[in-house]
């Protein structure tokens, strides 16, 4: 009843009736919706009403914004009609779904004055669990990207010309009909789509144009898993991997913490199982891989593996387990010989955790994945840790479909082709065929929002909305639905792809469209029809009422009860695939190339995003380029050094003049190159359309029906010239300093202070230590605890911090000069394990004490290298076997801060709440504070980074500036800046609490890095409050301060890292 009235109220509002105008008078009579958005509790009727008003009022905002201009809003424009819930100065939050990759994390979008400025994970969503990856964080800039097309384009005789929707709609429909009538075929090539409504739109399109095929294609495909599961169990799906249910995971080059399938979800589950407090076991992680991946750096045990031999590894593991299970083993050449004891021991460890273990592989080869399935069957992991019934929809693309499509397009079978959220001309090894085929096609349309490689080859570009402008739903996992809602009116004259398809297929929208009816929406605001379409689909799904739908919209998530997981039957005899398996085994003598995804740039769909480009790779710390990651042994043998240039070639595919980075941990006999680079992008040192890095996709090798990222038999030739990679960290060992503390799980269980029991230094001070009191009573004392054991180094916090605090992007040249501005960085240190004299696989398992053999000093490493060289040992095993620690480092907010004392003008002082404050407009830039900072976290504005053509990133154009957080000053040239612990959020939180006449709750205020962290490694709060989470962590035996002996009394404490390496077979 209530809602009905409200509905009509909205109607009135649109109609500008007297009642509405009257109601305008008292629009402030209720508290701000912001107050409720995050209070998940009691979603009563009222909450619904507000939420309905929220998205409703948003549309009014949209009207008023759209009324100003269709180009970005530049000036402060007063609202013609003030949207009910937008109060200048207050942020609004909307739950939605991240549209970057098809992992589809649930997100919460923060908007200010109707302008999205920040994206964070939505805690309701099981996918994101409140965290978000670097790419997702940075995706918000895609909305304010100057490269976006501001309307439909028509390409005639090679040159693209602006057009309008009416024209191209007409022409496209005519073409489609022509093709249809001529019996020609039409292809819709899209990335994985798991939106039920979108899929049904495609079906409607198919019913209109009967010869339409929908080809799903993922640049980084999981066809291997899909096909393996089809062959093994008859289910062509990617299963759900429940890391939280496992005690041990053995991964073959599956970087599940970095880039594999759904990294945020997996990181969440993994880190939860790595909590040591009161645990009698933590999720032991063993990985076999060639490139040093993020997972590799966090694994308890990491074994370098020549990926072309992966089949041997997995089969030997299978056989080892088969022996234990008394099952027949797979007969394959040299099985077991190569992998050695590490596999046997791993098998033992897995066997001890039957049903609570998990074996995964990053290989895209169906046969290898089939063996993996076999292994998990042996271990009885199905139904427990691996769930095929509540499967994942996140990746559905079959490479075979693409290759078939490419062939057919080339042969001219497809006369019409529509590219949706896919860019095969760039990201497919079949680029050449597709380009050739596209010339033949009668009709080629791309929905791409920018003029990307594929779009620029098409006849029409019908730009899709950015996901923050779109309505959509998604089903990332069976039974888990998420909604995407617009948070701003389309910035340009774009139209949602579904809408385009609907209009071309002439799909009539069921139900009334209140917006369209009033003619408020011009064609460039296209959400409404698809919104109604989606509503009808959801109604069919059982979510009919506005109330129910709005609840789902408010939560961003709608779950159906999960199906009981069953244990499937393996429908394939493994020995029948031996021959195919054999095919995958490359020549051991040859060099392997392993293509991988960088944690930030990933598949390259957003490689023109300056934030991502400037985010250092967590392992190599290289920004702004991809490079050949080379093992030390090879580099030594061929006398190649960092920054040398090499030509890489595999058969016909060549990549010339690639810079080299000698990567510790790179398995001998393998090299790595990141995909996702070499795109046409505006962002770059030399200005427009300078390519960043080089495109490695063409190397992808078709084998056993899938595209494989492992290429055996590449050749490298060193060429003249040199190229300096822009690294943010160039010293890689910790020099044996007590900066990162770690211990092993067994030791920790015996003594919780293990690894942290170093005698605390005598801290003398000339005067009594400052206590944070306000008129006697303890005042806030803001502090932060960072758990090195949870932190995976994924760098999401780095990007999040940059967005929240308007940290400028400085570009490749400046990073080379070591002037990146990141307030938060992640220090990465290598520990080289000296076992040049022993069989490493043996002692890895049998050695109880690692400290004895660790090399943490550069000098020690050089000595080791010398020994190796003297022995004529070209293996350099100590380079191949590195331990890695990640340490997030930001301003430590020292209680006795060295930086404060030395500032002549009091530009940096201490707050009464324990914050080390920076007063930008007082700073004169003597830089003494930075010199005197032991943690080197202060950043200086060497140039003016905004409105400066020499730094032509988003701060240099009005559109990009819309992402600026209005609560944070944009710093001018010549001032120092640093982490403020997001003081703007602290103040907002305090004000809110004050307005509600209550105490600030613990965890109510979160810093940007904390919000982003999928692992929950960062905890912020008031250490003076004895019940606060951070206080407990400060009391925790694992907590310590970095450089405590300086008696800086930092407000940031770190928690000792714990590795589970003591009894590998447990």
């Amino acid at each position, binding site marked *: 009843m209530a809602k009905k009235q409200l509905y009509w109220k909205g109607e009135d509002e649109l109609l500008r009736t007297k009642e509405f105008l009257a109601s305008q008078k008292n629009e402030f009579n209720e508290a701000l919706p912001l107050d409720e958005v995050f209070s998940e509790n009691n979603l009563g009727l009222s909450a619904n009403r507000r939420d309905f008003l929220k998205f409703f009022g948003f549309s009014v905002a949209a009207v008023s914004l759209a009324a100003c201009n269709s180009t970005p809003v530049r000036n402060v424009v007063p609202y013609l009609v003030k949207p009910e819930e937008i109060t200048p100065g207050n942020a609004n939050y909307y739950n939605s779904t991240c549209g970057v990759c098809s992992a589809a994390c649930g997100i919460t979008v923060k908007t200010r004055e109707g302008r999205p400025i920040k994206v964070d994970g939505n805690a309701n969503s099981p996918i994101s669990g409140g965290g978000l990856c670097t790419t997702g964080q940075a995706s918000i800039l895609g909305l304010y990207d100057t490269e976006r097309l501001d309307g439909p384009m028509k390409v005639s005789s090679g040159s693209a010309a602006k057009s309008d929707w009416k024209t191209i709609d007409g022409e496209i429909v005519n073409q489609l009909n022509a093709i249809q009538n001529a019996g020609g075929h039409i292809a819709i090539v899209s990335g994985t789509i798991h939106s039920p409504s979108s899929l049904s739109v495609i079906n409607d399109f198919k019913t209109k144009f009967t010869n339409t095929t929908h080809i799903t294609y993922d640049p980084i495909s999981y066809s291997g898993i899909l096909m393996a599961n089809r062959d093994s169990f008859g289910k062509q799906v990617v299963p759900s991997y429940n890391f939280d249910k496992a005690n041990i995971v053995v991964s073959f080059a599956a970087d599940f913490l970095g880039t594999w399938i759904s990294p945020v979800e997996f990181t969440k589950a993994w880190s939860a199982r790595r909590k040591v407090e009161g645990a009698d076991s933590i999720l032991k992680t063993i990985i076999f891989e060639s490139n040093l991946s993020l997972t590799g750096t966090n694994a308890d045990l990491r074994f370098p593996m020549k990926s072309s031999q992966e089949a041997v590894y997995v089969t030997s593991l299978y056989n080892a387990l088969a022996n234990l299970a008394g099952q027949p083993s797979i007969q394959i050449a040299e099985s077991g010989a190569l992998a050695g004891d590490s596999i046997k021991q791993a098998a033992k460890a897995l066997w001890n955790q039957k049903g609570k273990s998990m074996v995964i592989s990053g290989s895209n080869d169906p046969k290898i994945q089939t063996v993996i399935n076999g292994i998990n069957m042996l271990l009885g992991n199905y139904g427990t840790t691996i769930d095929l019934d509540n499967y994942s929809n996140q990746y559905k693309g079959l490479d075979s479909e693409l290759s078939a499509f490419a062939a057919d397009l080339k042969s001219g079978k497809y006369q019409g082709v529509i590219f949706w959220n896919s860019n095969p001309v760039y990201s497919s090894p079949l680029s050449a065929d597709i380009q050739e085929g596209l010339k033949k096609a009668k009709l080629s349309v791309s929905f791409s929002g920018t003029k990307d490689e594929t779009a620029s080859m098409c006849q029409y570009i019908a730009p899709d909305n950015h996901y923050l402008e779109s309505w959509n739903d998604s089903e990332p996992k069976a039974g888990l639905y998420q909604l995407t809602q617009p948070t701003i009116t389309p910035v340009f004259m774009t139209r949602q792809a579904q809408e385009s398809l609907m209009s071309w297929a002439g799909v009539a929208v069921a139900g009334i469209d209140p917006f369209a009816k009033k003619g408020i929406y011009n064609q460039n605001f296209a959400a409404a029809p698809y919104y109604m379409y989606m509503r009808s689909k959801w109604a069919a799904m059982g979510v009919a009422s506005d109330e129910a739908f709005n609840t789902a919209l408010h939560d961003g998530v709608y779950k159906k009860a999960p199906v009981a997981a069953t244990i499937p039957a393996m429908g394939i005899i493994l020995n029948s695939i031996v021959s195919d398996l054999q095919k995958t085994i490359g020549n051991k003598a040859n060099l392997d190339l392993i293509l991988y995804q960088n944690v930030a740039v990933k598949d390259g769909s957003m490689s023109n995003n300056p934030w991502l480009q400037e985010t250092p790779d967590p392992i190599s710390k290289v920004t702004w380029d991809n490079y050949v990651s080379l093992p030390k042994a090879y580099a030594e043998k061929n006398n190649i050094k960092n920054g040398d240039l090499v030509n890489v070639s595999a058969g016909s595919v060549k990549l010339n003049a690639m810079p080299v980075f000698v990567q510790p941990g790179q398995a001998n006999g393998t090299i790595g190159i990141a995909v996702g680079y070499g795109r046409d992008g505006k962002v770059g040192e030399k200005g427009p359309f300078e390519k960043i890095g080089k495109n490695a996709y063409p190397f992808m090798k078709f084998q056993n029906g899938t595209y494989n990222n492992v290429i055996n038999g590449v050749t490298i030739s060193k060429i003249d010239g040199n190229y300096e990679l822009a690294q943010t960290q*160039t010293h890689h060992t910790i020099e044996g300093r007590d900066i990162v503390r770690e211990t092993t799980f067994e030791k920790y269980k015996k003594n919780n202070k293990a690894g942290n029991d170093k005698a605390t230094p005598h801290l003398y001070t000339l005067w009594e230590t400052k206590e944070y009191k306000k008129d006697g009573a303890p005042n806030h004392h803001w502090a932060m605890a960072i758990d090195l054991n949870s932190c995976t180094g994924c760098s999401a916090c780095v990007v999040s911090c940059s967005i929240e605090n308007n940290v400028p992007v400085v570009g490749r040249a400046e990073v080379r000069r070591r002037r990146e501005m990141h307030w938060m960085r992640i220090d990465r240190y290598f520990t080289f394990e000296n076992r040049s004299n022993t069989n490493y696989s043996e002692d890895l398992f049998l050695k109880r004490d690692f400290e004895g053999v660790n090399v943490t000093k550069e000098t020690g490493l050089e000595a080791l290298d010398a020994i190796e060289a003297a022995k004529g040992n070209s293996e350099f095993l100590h380079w191949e076997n590195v331990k890695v620690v990640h340490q997030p480092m930001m301003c430590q907010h020292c209680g006795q801060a060295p930086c404060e004392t030395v500032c002549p003008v009091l530009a940096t002082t201490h707050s009464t709440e324990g914050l080390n404050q920076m007063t930008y407009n007082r700073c*004169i830039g003597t830089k003494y504070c930075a010199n005197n900072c032991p943690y080197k976290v202060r950043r200086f504005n*060497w140039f003016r980074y905004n409105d400066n053509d020499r730094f032509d990133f988003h701060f240099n154009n009005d559109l990009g500036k819309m992402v600026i957080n209005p609560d944070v000053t944009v710093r001018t*040239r010549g001032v120092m800046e640093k982490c403020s612990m997001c003081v703007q959020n602290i103040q907002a939180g305090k004000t809110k609490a004050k307005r509600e006449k209550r105490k600030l709750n613990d965890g109510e205020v979160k810093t940007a890095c904390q919000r982003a962290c999928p692992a929950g490694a960062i905890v912020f709060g008031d250490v003076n409050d004895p019940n606060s989470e951070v206080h407990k962590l400060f009391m925790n035996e694992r907590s310590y301060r970095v450089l405590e002996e300086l008696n800086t009394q930092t407000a940031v404490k770190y928690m000792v890292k714990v590795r589970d390496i003591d009894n590998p077979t447990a």
Partner: protein
Amino acid sequence: MIHDSVIRPQLVTGDKTLHDVTNEICRPIENKPSTSWTVGFILSLVFLGILGLTLGITLAYGIGTWGLNKTVQWGWDITNFVFWVGIGHAGTLISAILLLFRQKWRMSINRSAEAMTIFAVMCAAIFPLFHMGRIWVGGYWVLPLPNAFGSLWVNFHSPLLWDVFAITTYFSVSLVFWYLGLIPDIATVRDRAKTEGRKFWYNFFSMGWTGSVRTWNRYEVVSLILAGISTPLVLSVHTIVSMDFATSVVPGWHTTIFPPYFVAGAIFSGFGMVLTLLVIARKVMNYQDYITIGHLEAMCKVVMLTGTMVGLAYITEFFVAAYSGVEYEQYAFVNRAFGPYAWAYWSMMTCNLIAPQVFWFKWARTTPWFIFMLSIVVNVGMWFERFVIIVTSLHREYLPSGWVMYSPTLVEIGIFLGTFGLFFTCFFLFSKFLPVINMAEVKGILKNRE
């Protein structure tokens, strides 16, 4: 009356009458400039131009035009600052301390030494000013003025602020000292002046000096007191400069040995520069009779002494680091001597500790061209000392993740060269328009001619 000891050689040779002294010392002022002067002057003007250009670039684009980075945020700028301030110490030291010690040999060199002080401090001041990110506000925000809202003053805990006070005080007091010393000589020039212009200007600056004994009497008192307060001032200035480093937490900076060590270094470099200038000056203006080998020798002795002192300090630092047992401290010094900047460290050692030891030999102390060469070596060495202290300490600090290398850009180099332009421009003008030797004092130490 003047009572010269029998043993002590004459301070001014060649039986001058009072009038000779006046004539000879006023000659360069009253005659047309010599070619060597003109050439030198033009050359210095060129370098002054470079200074203007490079500072212009810095102002236009930002400190980013220098080679500094997130870890090494002081480089050549502060190196050059300390270098010039150090040079600026000899002048006041010679006139003040030597006056207190009644060292009469100072008399023919203190004028130019003081001038050198003032010009050197001017050059030095450029660097702390321009190394500021926002000189346009920093220029006056470092003074004890409240900010717009009256809440923010300056921070008296900050060594940089002590610097502001120390340098300004030192500069202005030196200026007063120098000008007081000049007045009688300006009067002399005034009374010899032919042209109206000269009459006017020298009269203007002579402040109606007549040589009244009453005034002389007060004048003596004043110079004595000024000398008295300048002596601790000289020492305090470089002490405070050294505190910019000593009070920090940076390994390699954080040492209590710095004040004496820096002062010794300052005297060392100051005398080095004085020697460089005087050896040229006495040749160019043929003042051999006034600036005798005796003078040079005396200064060489000081150079040798102070050189050895700084050398001792270098070695002591290592001992302290080793003895402290602090790994960061220890690494800082190992890194100095054997790290990537070892070349700088060893050139410093060679120039400052080893080279001056040749002054044990009389020949070395009494051969002008050799003294000149060595004075250059000393200047180079002292520049390297500052570079070593600042850069090698910063570039590898506590957290290895922040370790970097630093190298200057052309702009930085240009500014440094430019300051030499400024320095010599001032010096050439000084030698053209003012008596470079204190006539009044020299007259006082002529032997009786009766």
